[in-house]
């Protein structure tokens, strides 16, 4: 079953010189449990594609289907519900809610989605080496630790689709590699599909499939 289906997706941004097209008819499909690396040079539309897939932005044309639901049929509230229930997003930075502890951050989305499972949260925290940090606030953690919290949080909700935008982009090479290993393993265990934006060939190489975006279209 297809977790994510993009069909001829168009997206442009307004500018003073008229609309600037960012996505020019992207068609893509991902099955459950599949991992896909999305690469491309800066400005090629990688992040936009991710945002559209997450329902954070709305496509101008074409069809976006997440876990069998056509985005075009949803309003703001519906898209938000979809984000809560089926999707999880990990960004390069600022993923965490600064006013909540690490533990509360991990639990938060799962609780929002109504799928809170304390055992799963604990397991994720343990697996990501966060056991000793659950009572701390995010600001007390290093960048790698913060991204681990973001991963734990994303997976704690048991999403069908995990979207990650340069999740290790802010980390040094060794930490990035370690975080990547942990993430891939957990995604695999959870049976979720992972779409990851990256410009690192190394990271892309570790994914099941690799597509490249150039000037808003897949190569």
């Amino acid at each position, binding site marked *: 079953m297809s977790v994510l289906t993009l069909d001829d997706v168009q997206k442009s941004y307004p500018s003073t010189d008229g609309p600037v097209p960012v996505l020019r008819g992207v068609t893509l499909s991902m099955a459950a449990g599949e991992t896909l690396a999305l690469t491309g040079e800066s400005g090629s539309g990688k992040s936009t594609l991710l945002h559209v897939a997450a329902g954070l932005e709305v496509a101008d044309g074409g069809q976006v289907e997440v876990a069998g639901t056509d985005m075009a049929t949803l309003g703001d509230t519906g898209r*938000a519900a979809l984000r809560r229930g089926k999707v999880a997003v990990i960004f390069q930075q600022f993923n965490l*809610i600064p006013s*909540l502890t690490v533990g509360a951050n991990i639990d938060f*989305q799962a609780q929002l989605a109504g799928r809170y499972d304390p055992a799963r949260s604990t397991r994720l925290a343990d697996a990501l080496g966060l056991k000793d940090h659950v009572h701390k606030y995010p600001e007390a953690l290093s960048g790698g630790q913060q991204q681990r919290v973001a991963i734990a949080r994303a997976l704690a909700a048991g999403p069908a689709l995990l979207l990650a935008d340069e999740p290790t982009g802010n980390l040094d090479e060794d930490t990035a590699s370690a975080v990547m290993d942990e993430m891939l393993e957990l995604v695999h265990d959870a049976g979720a599909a992972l779409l990851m934006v990256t410009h690192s060939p190394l990271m892309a190489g570790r994914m099941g499939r690799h597509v490249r975006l150039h000037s808003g279209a897949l190569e």
Partner: protein
Amino acid sequence: MIAATSVALASHWRRHKLQLFALLAGLALATGLWAGVQAINAEARASYDAAAGTLGEGQFDQIVPRRGEVITVDDYVTLRRAGWRVSPVIEGSIGEVRVLGLEPLSSPGRFDLGRVAQDSEMDDFIGPGLLFADADTIARLQTKARVIEAADAPPNIAVGDIGVVARLLGRDDLDRLLVLPDQPLGQPALADVAPHLRLLPAAQTADVGELTDSFHLNLTAFGLLSFAVGLFIVHSTIGLSFEQRRGLVRSLRALGVPLRTLVSLMAAEVALLALLGGALGIALGYVMAAALLPDVAGALRGLYGAEVAGSLSLRPEWWLSGMAIALAGSAVAAGGKLWQIGRMPPLASAQPRAWAEAARRAARWQGMAALGLGLAALGLALFGTGLIAGFVTLAAFLIAAALALPVIIRPVTALAQSRAQSPLAQWFWADTRQQLPGLSLALMALLLAVAANIGVSTMVSSFRLTFTAFLDQRLAPELYVQIEDPEEAARLQPIMETAADEVLPLLRTDGVVAGQPVQVLGIRVGTTYRENWVFLDQTDAPWDAVEAAGAVILNEQFARRANLWVGDTVPLDTPLPVAAVVADYGNPSGQVILGDALFDRLYPGTVPRAFGLRTNDIDALRDTLLTAGADAQAMTDQTALKRFSLQVFERTFLVTGALNILTLAVAGFAMLMSLLTLADQRVPQLAPVWAMGLTRASLARLEVVRAGVFAAIVALVALPVGLGLAWVLLARVNVEAFGWRLPMFLFPGDYAVLGAAALAAALLAALWPSLRLARLAPARLLQVFAHER
């Protein structure tokens, strides 16, 4: 370098126009409220002075005719030639306008025509028959005489030379003579020169001044509180602008701008903004005062029975004080920040400190400061004496309460978070707590505003209740008749006894009791006294004891001065116990009240100087007495007087109510500005929650709810603070200022309304920032996560 640095510093305001607006608006509102209240006070006082100065009422002794006599011009000349420096006054009315004739050469008045009257017209004051009046009065004055407009003329009075007015009124006698303060050596007694005239000391003509002073004090305290509320806006915006420019300051110093130059320029910038905001505020205060002044004028007219101009002029005393306070307020707000910058090493981190750590530290500091100030306020309230101590108590108490507010809110939100079931609720409370540092100044402002409103309305309402009861007590007899001499008393008393339902002779003499000068009053104990008098403290059956000449009643002023209370004895010819202490407002003298039998024994031969008469038909009783030869001027219809006095407080309420609304509006504005300036910082905090599946609309709704929660907590905290404020005003400040303590009453209905108003102000303030959030472009939220920010 200075120019370049200035441009760099000023660029901040170009990029943060909202902050600039908040700063100027905050200063303007704070100064405006202060200046407005000052303007009302200054204008009311100046108008009263102008009226009193012109009329010579209140401040000068007067010579008036004895009953049935008149003052002739010859009497005036005779007195002057005997060495009495006096000035004649004649008054009457033309239509509804009071016309006052003065003798400008001898008048002690301070009536200033000089500003308006032209040279040629000055010549004419005495000669060809001119009157002077303000524009309103001229419009209403129907006379053939030429009337010159004089802006400083007292309201509803046309003033002219005594000769002119005498001719207009067709009079050749005088109404009264004002006695100048400086009299020459070797002056003979009045009785030797003009036995048919009597001297009316100034003290007897002005005895409600204390009420007006109390009113002014009330307004002044309110003005200060309002200013404090506004100052919170200034403080928070100046703080923010300095905080946001730390990076700029660091860069400028790295580029070689000397610290001294930088600090001086920033200080100059604050001064410039303060001047600008202060000027705006003075304009605002003027508008506000002009709108409120008719009510104040009405209130004072009621209190004094004298006129206060309903118009306003720019008096230097209040606009200067407004400017000074705007500058001082900004200096206080900026001083600490400038000092920090002065100590900051050139390459210190430009990053603001981690919020949680900083907030915890600030909370600890604030908690300790609040505790210290609170203890100081308590100590002062219990042991302090003097008016200054009263006001310092007030200040310490309010600042302590304001500082304590975040310290109180923090555990409340923590508790709520721990009790919260849903993740959203948990996040909501956690986020609420995180918002606290940014909003705490605005919340303190709201606290002060609500507390001030609760305090002042408690005070004014208590004042009204007390005063109404006092009027009922003291003005119970429907008709009050003053007596000039024993013959008249002997002649009228039998007639009163038959015509009135109850006759209450009032015996009075001056004496010294327990080392204090007092008025000793002798009264006939009857149902009127028994039913109407309410005591501050009393024995079981005070009136029986007083009637039986076995006890006395003291007024509060005397009880305080002599420290004699129920249970003590008063040293008269034999020591007598105090049966009761009665509140006595608007009277500075101590009084000892005795039964008439005891009074006769102690002061034999004293005749009543006044009678209170109970009746159902005032007009009939008055006619009877007039027929019997009583003087119409000597009879007072106390029912009408009471009605009139009560109107005063209705007007006071109008003014207080308007100020209440304004203060809350300022607090609401402070909140709005804080929320707007925080809005940018909020985006990174909200973006993850949004990304995780909350709509912008629901986030916006939560923002409004949060404001409501804050306001509710603030309102709850404000209640005890406001009541404490009222207590200090009534039980401390008023006692120190006027010698009597006002009993405090509680008005839960009013507080509920005020609480609702505070809630409404906060919700309104949150509305705009929330709407902005609801409509925030997703791109702005996504930027948070973007690779390059």
